[in-house]
């Protein structure tokens, strides 16, 4: 299977948000691969390998694609170090792009790469938009399976059986290839991905995406990463969705520590009036 994985670099979410000139101050920020995209790379790897033998299935290929500034190359290398085969870095600034531009560029890349599957994160944890996957599928006229918590590849490899986390339970949807899958947190569960090659008995650690090994990091340095521009894909680097300003929410008023349950109930009933 040939899988395309779009990834975005995002500021490390554990950093405190600071505002400068009405926008998030990113000077000195440290960056990570969007967690859901890291999970998407992990998912793609699990789809393309025999997990028990830690060996790639012949003919499989994983291509990571990212739109971002020059130094996003670092996060792209991280994905290569995890095990992706090659990368396309579309060099641009965050001001030039929005979901629509990202989708157009991805569409252009898909037209030339012709992957069997696009596997990506369900949302980028900086903007929390949760749009690009669905928009991309709509543009391509491909089916979509969003919020995937489990994937099972059919024996003939022509379709996927996807468990989707929805309100009120888990929905199972079957999609043919090619299609767009967006992954949710639980896709990295111990047995969430079944590819019909990895033995049923194999259990992944379930502790998130794999860390790049030292060998992986060395290998990543030699893996191909081509750079391109937004205009190469017939898209205009012009955002129709513009951020005018950012504010921080007012801090919550300081609360109090109550000594015991009796006091707690009294406060809830008499002060907060919520009981």
């Amino acid at each position, binding site marked *: 299977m040939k899988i395309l994985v779009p990834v975005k670099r995002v500021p490390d*979410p554990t950093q405190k948000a600071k505002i400068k000139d009405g926008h998030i101050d990113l000077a000195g920020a440290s960056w990570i691969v969007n967690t859901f995209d890291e999970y998407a790379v992990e998912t793609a790897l699990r789809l393309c390998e025999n997990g028990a033998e830690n060996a790639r299935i012949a003919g499989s290929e994983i291509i990571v694609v990212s739109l971002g500034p020059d130094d996003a190359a670092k996060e792209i290398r991280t994905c290569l170090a995890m095990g992706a085969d090659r990368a396309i870095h579309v060099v641009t600034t965050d001001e030039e792009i929005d979901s629509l531009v990202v989708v157009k560029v991805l569409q252009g890349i898909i037209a030339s790469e012709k992957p069997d599957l696009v596997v990506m994160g369900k949302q980028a944890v900086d903007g929390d938009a949760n749009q690009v996957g669905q928009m991309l599928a709509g543009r391509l006229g491909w089916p979509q399976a969003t919020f995937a918590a489990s994937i099972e590849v059919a024996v003939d490899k022509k379709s996927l059986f996807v468990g989707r986390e929805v309100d009120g339970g888990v929905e199972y949807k079957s*999609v043919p290839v090619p299609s767009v899958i967006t992954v949710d947190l639980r896709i990295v569960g111990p047995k969430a991905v079944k590819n019909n090659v990895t033995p049923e008995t194999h259990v992944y650690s379930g502790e998130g995406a794999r860390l790049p090994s030292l060998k992986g990091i060395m290998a990543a340095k030699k893996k191909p990463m081509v750079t391109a521009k937004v205009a190469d894909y017939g898209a205009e680097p012009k955002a129709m969705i*513009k*951020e005018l300003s950012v504010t921080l*929410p007012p801090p*919550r008023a300081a609360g109090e*520590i*109550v000594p015991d349950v009796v006091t707690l109930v009294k406060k809830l009933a008499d002060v907060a009036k919520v009981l």
Partner: protein
Amino acid sequence: MGNILAFCEFTDGVLRSSALSNIAFAREAATHHGGEVIIILVGAGAAAAGAAASKFAPKVITVEDPGLANYLAETYAPIVAREAKANNATVVTATATAVGKDLLPRVAALLDAGMASDIAKTTGKDTFIRPILAGNAYSTVQISTPIICVTPRQSEFEPAAELGSAGTVTASAAGAIDALGASFERLDAQKSDRPDLGDAKVVVSGGRGMKTGENFKVLEELADLLGAAMGASRAATDAGMVPADWQVGQTGKIVAPNLYFAVAISGAIQHLAGMKGSKTIVAINKNKDEPIFQVADYGLVADWEKAIPELITEIKKLKASR
């Protein structure tokens, strides 16, 4: 001048409470765009729900067809996009539920529309305020496409009230339906008599410190006493203690009840993102240094094993005394 097309979810012939938040936003958008709110109902039972929906908007469009019995983004999106064009909509909306989030970006793609997801507020014709960075900041965005797609957050818009007079209901033919090879297989639903997490007035959530699913029973007893919905942290859902759709947080449900109990939850930013908007927050945790105490209105440093049964007893006493 443009109309607002509001995709609304329904069950058993009535609009879901989540849809009423969507209508509330749609009405605000209509004042900015000068048009009217048009509700669109798609799927099995749409026609039957038309009458109930017509109490909320001057116009309702229903699209029902055996091929639309189960929700699929592939089949629903082209219908919503088509009706948006046919009805001169400049804004298309759906509540940010699992369906709304799955559907609306696909509709946006078909309409070349820019989209504002999960919005908390609208400040004009094309400007919206939405949480970013797990709710740690609020971004004002401006969208300059001719049609705009928006998913309002249920917890940020008070449910719309009925109008004085009922609107018209029009059935629209589904037209050619093409699922592009996708199919709905089944829904493994979590049956519960408790209120929906999305609109419960009280939520009781447990975290990893509950240790087992069995231990959640005592929280459920507290929840039932308060008519509350059950919630959980990701650690608890990932460990399989409780169903995945109980997860509250950046990637789970966003809730804003009057009263939120966080029991044995540390208060990671991703969890806080889902419950910071609650009016009153109670944290019960054995470790006084946990970040959950920084957002709690009332914090109790205690083991849940001792505190929760006591809490149930005290609340029962309070109720009996009234």
